[in-house]
């Protein structure tokens, strides 16, 4: 006897118990009676295509017990829309649930469906930022934030400052860098210039260079810099002077960033007669500054048509 079987409200439903397929199922879960009963009623209402208030309660119960239950989430959304429910109320319930199960993917997809239908994102960016206090790199939350920006056209509002805030907190947070890239460049399909705009480009270059200044061995801003010049069609060599502040073949003992050396190798390779210098930079990476990737650096040399050299030779030279 359980919560549902004893409830007259559910008397008309014939529950569908779990079909385990046979007498010896593999990896069978010893469900609690409560879970088993609730799922049995869930299966029954889904089979009958029932969309009702009591179904909402049922889904709430199940989500409490198993927030990763994608079927129940999708059915709940369908039911809400079918009944034309107050979606603000749904969001309030979701807020509580989200705090408990932040890493759960389904919850964010559900939120996305609700807010899309509401056609109003009031309070959403603030809520999301709150979520980042616990985990500033949550993939689903960042994806949701991107969707908000696009769906509600939040490009010009406070998104840029938001990424600045996040990066001030942790300049190595690659998710925040990715979001910044999206804010700046996400509208090129709509004809809004990203890095192609000179003023904007300068702002972004300065921002990334500043981050390198604080943390030279931080890959995120280096990736960002490379992407800016590539996207804008500016020669890679425009970063040469900057990269040389962190790595120089003239001072092979005081390289401050392997990413700077890697970038220099690419810059040299594009210069007339620069292949040998590129090779030297790559040798330095393989022999001293990034030996775990020695095969990759050798591969890069081979792409330039250069022979690979032994580490001993590099160190001696």
């Amino acid at each position, binding site marked *: 006897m359980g919560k549902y079987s004893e409830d007259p409200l559910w008397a008309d439903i014939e529950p569908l118990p*779990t*079909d*385990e*397929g*046979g007498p*010896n*199922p*593999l*990896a069978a*879960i*010893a*469900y*609690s009676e409560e*879970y088993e009963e609730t799922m049995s009623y869930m*299966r029954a209402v889904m089979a009958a295509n029932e969309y009702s208030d009591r179904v909402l309660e049922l889904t709430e119960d199940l989500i409490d017990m*198993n927030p*990763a*239950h*994608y*079927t129940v989430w*999708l059915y709940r*959304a369908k039911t809400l829309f079918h009944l034309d429910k107050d979606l603000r109320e749904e969001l309030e319930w979701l807020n509580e649930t989200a705090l408990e199960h932040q890493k759960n*993917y*389904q919850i964010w*997809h559900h939120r996305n469906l609700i807010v899309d239908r509401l056609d109003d994102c009031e309070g959403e960016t603030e809520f999301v930022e709150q979520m980042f206090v616990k985990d500033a*790199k949550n*993939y*689903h939350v*960042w*994806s949701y934030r*991107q969707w908000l920006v696009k769906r509600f056209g939040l490009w010009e509002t406070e998104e840029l400052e938001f990424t600045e805030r996040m990066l001030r907190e*942790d300049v*190595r*947070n*690659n*998710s925040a860098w*990715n979001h910044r*890239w*999206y804010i700046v*460049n996400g509208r090129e399909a709509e004809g809004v210039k990203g890095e192609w705009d000179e003023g904007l480009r300068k702002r972004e270059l300065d921002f990334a260079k500043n981050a390198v200044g*604080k*943390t*030279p*061995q*931080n*890959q*995120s801003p280096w*990736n*960002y810099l490379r*992407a800016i010049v590539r*996207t804008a069609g500016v020669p890679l060599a425009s970063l040469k002077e900057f990269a040389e502040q962190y790595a120089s073949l003239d001072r092979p003992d005081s390289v401050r960033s392997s990413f700077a050396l*890697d970038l220099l190798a690419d810059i040299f390779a594009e210069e007339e007669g620069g292949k040998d210098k590129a090779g030297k930079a790559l040798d330095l990476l393989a022999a*001293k500054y990034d*030996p*775990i*990737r*020695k*095969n*990759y650096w050798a*591969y890069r040399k081979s792409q330039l048509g250069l022979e690979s050299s032994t580490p001993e030779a590099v160190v001696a030279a």
Partner: protein
Amino acid sequence: MAITDSAADDTLDELLRNKARIIELPDDNNEDEVTGVPFPGNHLRKNGIHHLPQWLQQTTIGLFHDDYNTVSSEALDKTAAECLPHLTGQDNQGIPLNRHGLPHLQRKQHASFLHTPLKGLPAPYAAMDASRPWLFYWCTAGLSFLREDVSMYRERLMETVRPLQNKIGGFGGGHGQLSHCACTYATLLALATVGGLDVIDREAMWHWLGTVKQADGGFRMAIGAEEDIRGAYCAMTAITLLNLPLELPPDSPTREAGLTHFTDRLGEWISTCQSYEGGISSAPNHEVHGAYAFCALACLCILGPPHITIPKYLDVDRLIRCLTTLQTNPEGGFAGRTNKLVDACYSHWVGGCWALLEAAVVGPHEAKQNGSVSSAESRLWNREALVRYLLTCCQQPGPKGGMRDKPSARPDGYHTCYSLSGLSAAQNQYTYNTTASTTDRETGRLLSAFNWKGERASEGDMKGLSVERNDVVELVHPVFVIRFEAVEEARRKFARGGFPVVEGTD
């Protein structure tokens, strides 16, 4: 991980950590310790430091330290500190060493660890009620990577998954759950592993896949669910292994958008997932993530030969650069994202990319010489470092075995399976045969994914990787991530294509 129904790796890791791992808690610690046995190789420990590879030497580890601490750098430093004693041989956790001084692969223990969940799970595993097919796959496939016989699970698995298969086609996470690409993929691979493919209703599967194909070329994970790159890889795996028609079923809603085939706009859609950093994200504009790189590359390797489809749709140089940097220093394993932590499951998700990429870059040149694209010559990555990470840091010591994300984590089926397939990627050689045909003339089946050959680690390879024969994992198919024999059986079984008038029942 990455392609469970619960999206990115973190989710599943979290899930396992919080609830489902309860069963794996050791009930007492004493039984776990194997001590004092004079295994050959133990003597190496004393002077082991001198033999450390260069990336583990103090001079390398000490490079580039700045005082600008953030949440990220603190987490990175903490992880390095927890791994170093294992990596350098100071702490072998009592695991017997091989003659090169690395811990042996604890085959028996890991096998028993993978058999355990199949026997049944306690109530807290209800948290995995929507991803149980993954347990079937991780456990059976992981066992097969250890050369364990799993055929005894055939009948039981076929019975177990029958209620998971929906009339409209595809498999859900459990009885009465919606069909889902990830659940379908995991069930299919588990069935292929034990030889139970007959239970699948191929025609219904074909119809259902037609409902998740999208007009932009990608696939949704389920009807009404998210569209991402896992969907594309999972769906194309099912279509190819089961030899379903490439034509969209007549009732597919995408036909209205002018699409006629499952492959329409698919390569182009995958292109849009390559981000500004060069890596691949779950869907356009999202952050680069190692797991999605594997899904993209494997999907392209289903569409055609690696040296043709990969460069056609992706900027290979930028992708390689991005994935290379995910191999972490000093641990030697892979992280899933830039500035994040090493985690054993990426040994597969990123480690599994290299065979595909190496075949893509060596392809055309080598093909002229002998018709096969080998990954032996071109070695883009550090296999030795990955092997060391997995053997020293990721094996749970003691009789219960299992493999884990990192030393401070508990073992689970997911990390055990993907650590083993990552080991296989590092230890063995995989070759693409460029002269084999890429499409079956009669049925239209895409054949490229069947043109891979695996070659076990040679004596020289083993020496280079500091392993012995019994530390080497079986050959794992680089596209479908099950044993080659299982792939071959699926290829032969459905070679004739079409749908039977009456579905066979045995």
